[in-house]
C-alpha cells in the first residue's frame, strides 16, 4: 500500500490514533510523551504509530495533514493537533469528551 494510503487507513480506521516518536510505553520525545499521557488519562483505548519505526510515515505525515511536527493526534479521522493543543484541550476537559464520544461512536458502528 502507498504510504499516503497507509496513513489514511490508520487515521480513518481508528477512532483515536497518535503518530508519535516511540511508543506510549517508551516515548522517545517529551512532546510525544506528554500527548500520549493525556490520551491515556482519557481512559479509553487508542491506537499509536511509532514514526521512528516507520521512516516512510515519518517523511510523509507532515504533508498528509499540512502539519510539520510530531506528535499528531487524530480523532474521528480529523487532526486534533500536536502536543500543545492536545494538552490544552485536556486541561479544559474537551479532549476527554471528544475521545469518549469517538470511541462510543466507533463501537456503535462495529456492533
Amino acid at each position, binding site marked *: 500500500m502507498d504510504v499516503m494510503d497507509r496513513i489514511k487507513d490508520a487515521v480513518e480506521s481508528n477512532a483515536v490514533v497518535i503518530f508519535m516518536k516511540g511508543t506510549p510505553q517508551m516515548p522517545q*520525545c517529551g512532546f510525544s510523551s506528554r500527548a500520549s499521557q493525556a490520551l491515556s488519562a482519557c481512559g479509553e483505548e487508542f491506537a499509536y504509530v511509532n514514526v521512528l519505526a516507520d521512516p516512510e510515515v515519518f517523511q510523509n505525515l507532515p504533508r498528509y495533514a499540512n502539519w510539520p511536527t510530531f506528535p499528531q493526534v487524530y480523532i474521528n479521522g480529523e487532526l486534533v*493537533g500536536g502536543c500543545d493543543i492536545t494538552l490544552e484541550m485536556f486541561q479544559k476537559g474537551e479532549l476527554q469528551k471528544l475521545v469518549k464520544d469517538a470511541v462510543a461512536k466507533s463501537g456503535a458502528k462495529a456492533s
Partner: protein
Amino acid sequence: MNENRVAMIREKLTTTFAPTELDIEDDSAKHAGHAGARSGGGHFNVRIVSAEFSGKSLVERHRMVYAAMGDAMQSDIHALSIQAKSPDEA
C-alpha cells in the same frame, strides 16, 4: 546560534501577524542530547497575540504559525511550542 534563530523567528512572526504581544523563549538547552534534538534544530516556546487569530481554530492558528516559519521548520526548528491568542482572549 540560537540567538540568531530567536531573532529570525521574531522577524517572521512580526512581519506575518503584526502581534500585539510576542514572547519567544529558547528552550533548546533543556532538550540537548535527546534523540529528537540530534538533527541540531532548536526548541522554542512562542506566545503570540494577534488579531489575525480571531475566529480561527487552534489547528488553524498553529498551521498559520508553522506556515510563517516556512523552511525553518525543516532545519532550524525541531520543536515549536505555540500559544496563539486573539487580543480578546489574551
